[in-house]
């Protein structure tokens, strides 16, 4: 039995002078528990744990890019398309993922395995193109690497 969300959140909230500060960590935990995204119940759970309204929690969540308001695939593939990666071929990398996965950025594969996203700079500009897979960054990715990466991920 996993610990109830409220218990987990309470321990985190205790680190801060005001428990409201734990809203982001709590949303992150709720997101993990709900398979990578935040359905409406998640806001009610977080709200209940921190004595905030669900509306407030949703207001916070929708401000940040890493909270997902719609279901995502089992693996999250995020390709940086900001200028530094862009100057070095990020769009080809993104296109390669589109081809390999058969989806457009923002979409999830029909089998629910992958969500592909284009993202803003994720802080690896000296090693383009940066691709985040479930928040783990791969550096110096080229379009040529993509089929191999997708292959690996399918089997992991």
């Amino acid at each position, binding site marked *: 039995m996993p610990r109830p969300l409220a218990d987990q959140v309470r321990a985190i909230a205790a680190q801060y002078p005001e428990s409201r500060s734990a809203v982001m960590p709590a949303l992150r935990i709720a997101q993990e528990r709900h398979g990578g995204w935040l359905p409406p119940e998640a806001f009610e759970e977080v709200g209940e744990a921190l004595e905030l309204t*669900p*509306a407030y929690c949703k207001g916070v969540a929708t401000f940040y890019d890493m909270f997902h308001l719609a279901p995502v695939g089992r693996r999250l593939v995020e390709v940086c398309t900001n200028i530094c990666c862009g100057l070095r071929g990020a769009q080809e990398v993104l296109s390669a993922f589109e081809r390999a996965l058969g989806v457009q950025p923002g979409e999830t594969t029909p089998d629910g395995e992958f969500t592909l996203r284009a993202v803003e700079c994720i802080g690896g500009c000296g090693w383009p193109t940066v691709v985040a897979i479930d928040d783990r960054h791969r550096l110096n990715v080229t379009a040529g690497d993509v089929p191999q990466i997708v292959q690996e991920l399918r089997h992991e």
Partner: protein
Amino acid sequence: MSTAELVTVRIDERSVQVPKGTGLIETAAAAGIEIPVFCYEPRLGAAVGACRMCLVEVEGMPPKPQAGCTLTAQDGMVVKTARTSEMARVAQNATLEFILVNHPLDCPVCDKGGECPLQDLTFRYGPGSTRMTFEKRTFEKPIPISPAISIDRERCILCYRCTRFSESVSEDNQLVALNRGAQTLIATFEDEPYTGAFTGNVTELCPVGALLPTQPRFQIRPWELQSVPTVCGLCPVGCNIDANQREGKVRRVLSRNHPEVDEGWLCDKGRFGFNHLYAEDRITDPLRRVRRRGLEEISWEDALDDAERLLREAGGRIAVALSGSETTEQAYALAKLVREGLGAHTAMLPEEIGGGLDAFRAPLSAIRDAELIVVLGDDPVVERAPIVDLWLRKARRAGAEIVEIGPAGDIQTAPGTTARACRRLIRGDLGDRLRASERAILIWSGGGAGGGSHLAKLAAELGLADKPGSGAFFLPETANGRGVAEAWAAVSDEEGPEPEPLSLLIVSGDEAAANPNVRALAERAERVLAITMFHSLAAGWADLVLPGTSYLERDGTYVNLEGRIQRLRRTSIPPAPDELAWIAQLAARFGIELSPYPSLVFAELSERAFGGVTYEDLGEQARLPERVPLEAAPAESPDEPVPAKPAAGALQLLRYRPLFSGAAVERVAELQFQRPARVIELSAKDAKRLGVKRGEPVGVRSNGTSLELRAAINKKLKAGVARIAEEHARDLHPTVEVSKP
């Protein structure tokens, strides 16, 4: 308050002296200069500097435009507004251009048109034409955010006034901003209705036509309305309002800021409740009971003849049940008729408040400035006197300590034991701290006969009379219960025996007509004369019905819970003559001299009860009368009988009258969603013991009555107590058994 240091500020070559720290917007206004704003609204807390409409140039600050709303007056400050600074002019013009870039410019079909700050400021400061040629942001529109309010997101300029209200005034946190940047929008959670006592305020705060009340949608243009400065008559706060009428009908109600009473906030009952005036079952003609055929319309002449006959035949064996919604003048007139004219002294006053509180009189705004506040009683403040709840929240935000004593309080007490709690306070630590504080406030929120005198005794013991920052408030159930009681007493202090048999019961007003105790008395009465607005309240028991009117249809005065005498001004023409008019006629038939004009009746009453203040003295924003020094210790009312402790497993029933209930609310379509859900509130402990979860149906039983309600868990509620709204508790006895069905 100490007088703040005065500083001199130069604005556009004009010098102005203001207390140090005055907002720059207000400072400029004092110099007769407008700094335009959208997001700035000091009642919402610290300035946020979001809209950038107020940009000015300030000497000595970085060479770029500064947000005037976030600045305060400092000595020697030199400010240039758009009138004299090119930098500020360009900046303001830029802000307006940016705001209009995504605004639909649909003024001709917008209900805000004519009183829209965006429209006005665009006219004064804006670009003449648009350079924006691209597609604007579009949204589905307008959509309801509740049955009472709709939102048009394309018109929204994201000033965040509404969400700031929701977060830091009403503190309901239901209206929020979602998304980020240009995608930001205002919403409720999953588009659920925005529910709460104060939601309508956002329609006044919104500086554009984004949040509008649904009530007068497309029916009015602001410039066609006439605004009448009056006060709300739906709770004892007496919020100052501007009632807007066209063609003799109320079209909407707006707040009218009285800084000591309401600070410009209004509850939804006061704002949206006026439609009950036009309810289908409104009585417009006198009605007489005709055997078997029920009630039949009769002429006013016949009605007065009937009334005269009923009064004469009663031979003084008359009782009057009053509602507390009568104007002070009506109550006085009625008292004069039956007390002076007929020697009948028996009245059921709406509630017994008890005396002595005038020694601790303070404006409601004193709550905001208090350091220690004790709220005693069985009922949530918001249900009895909603604005007081906002003052309390403001006090808490300002750092006041608030201690609640009651069945759902910080200090838990059994229902019906508020008087005892008062006595305990006199000794105890908390009492000592109240005694030591310069700014201590006591509030009694709940029933309990003579609560006012218990509270006054407590306040006297704590020495609050000598501290101007302290005070004691009793929150009555009715809007003018105080005024009615004073008017009744002003006529005569004679007392008579309770009439037996009771020949005639006069039921004055809808609250009395709906009161089960009055109904019980009517069973004993040979005849009943009822004054009421609605058919359903008169049917079945009255012999003669005279049409009642509403606070929006009357001239006169109400005395609010502070003891402030405030003017009612007629906004809507009633469908029948108002009560005072025909009471005066009836009185004449008994040789009683009584003017049909409220001003003259008030003058007479004022001589007897209000120290001779005149209508003119009251003005549009009534002042609070001085404290009346305590002559003797307030008479102690006897305690209410404490309900017997329920048998093991049973719960003590705590009834409360929700804000959104009563004859007016029941008749307003837009308020139905605000009425209390069919729930029973249980303490966490009882819910656990009973094995019920939030939202589950439970059976509630007491002697012979049983009903099904949904469970709500109230973590603050005392174990052994179950709380149910009056309209759902109905015939339940004081002790109930709760179980899973």
